[in-house]
């Protein structure tokens, strides 16, 4: 798993042929060496801090996840049930590799870890997410983030 050949044929076909936005630009942002980068995670797993408002459907906005969140307080409210959740249940780093980032920062491999990370709900139409993604870019810059790891499910 998961090469498409490992999935049920109808699911594989749907995923492979999912309509994607056709972008006209080809942005390519460069930056300093890794040891000087400040890194944030942006997930599309519908992650939410326990007690915060979960994603209810194909919501286009995002939730903030502070770097200080405890592993026991991160829940997955993604609407889809057709992906594995047992990996995330055992170890949040499978989806949200915050411990790994903190280790890389301690070792000096990356510069630092962002103060806040974010999650969208990946089943949402990307076009509807765009204004929120633009807003998020501003928040990331305000935190001096210059590298984002995008983590799907």
């Amino acid at each position: 798993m998961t090469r498409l050949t490992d999935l049920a044929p109808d699911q594989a076909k749907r995923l492979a042929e999912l309509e994607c936005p056709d972008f006209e630009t080809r942005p390519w942002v460069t930056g300093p060496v890794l040891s000087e980068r400040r890194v944030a995670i942006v997930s599309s797993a519908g992650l939410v801090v326990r007690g915060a408002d979960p994603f209810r459907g194909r919501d286009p906005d995002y939730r903030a996840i502070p770097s200080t969140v405890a592993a026991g307080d991160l829940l997955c409210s993604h609407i889809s049930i057709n992906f594995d959740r047992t990996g995330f249940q055992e170890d949040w780093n499978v989806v949200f590799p915050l411990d790994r980032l903190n280790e890389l920062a301690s070792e000096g491999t990356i510069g630092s870890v962002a103060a806040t990370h974010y999650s969208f709900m990946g089943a949402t139409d990307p076009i509807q997410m765009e204004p929120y993604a633009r807003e998020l870019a501003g928040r990331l810059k305000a935190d001096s983030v210059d590298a984002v790891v995008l983590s799907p499910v």
Partner: protein
Amino acid sequence: MSALGHYLEEDGIATVAIALIRPQAENTRPPRALWVPFELGRPFGPPSDVAFQKRVLLSALGMLVEGGGPTRIIDFPDDDPRAQPDLTWKPPFVSAAVGGGDVEALAVGLRAEVLSLQDAHQRWMARHGRSTVGLSGLSIAACAQYVADWLTGKAPPSPRDGFSAPLILRFAVDDLKAYCLEAAGETGEPSSRQLGDWLWNQTATGEALHALRQLLLAHADERLRLIVANFMVPGARLRTG
């Protein structure tokens, strides 16, 4: 995910995406994507494997300082070792009362099973230090009761302000599934398929959810029908005929 990368990069922030579905990354053409041959839901691979996860993360981060743009997809070479079954794993129990019962019996079985899994779930919590149960905001016994009430035709109102009854039903089902799967994983290193086979084929909870889905597919509330049709039993676990 690839689209988000495009938006953020247009606004000046360098991104690298993990890609689980390679054709999607090929179609969207994000600036940088690392395709990984892992199961959906596991972008960084095996749980509790620090070294493997770090290799995935470093492979992705490395793309941020490599050339090859403005669109680059590379493939991670290794499979997830935890995708293999743990042949020594045993589920916490095998329910003797699964299948064939009426809805009242299924409701009783569901509530009893949740109670019987308490110790296993406590051991899971002790082993992993976390639980992902909690979307509904209800206790797990209350989740079982709420689902049992729907199963036996009571159509209970939502117990939580600001959440519709169909939404709370969805979250209660999510919590029940998480609770059972966590309890079942309290020992060993079972694969997701082993855990799913157990939940959907060998438990009163799985049987109750199959029955609930079938029952509510005929409900008058369109939103409820939509939720039970699509967001309760995974497509690969649906029973036909």
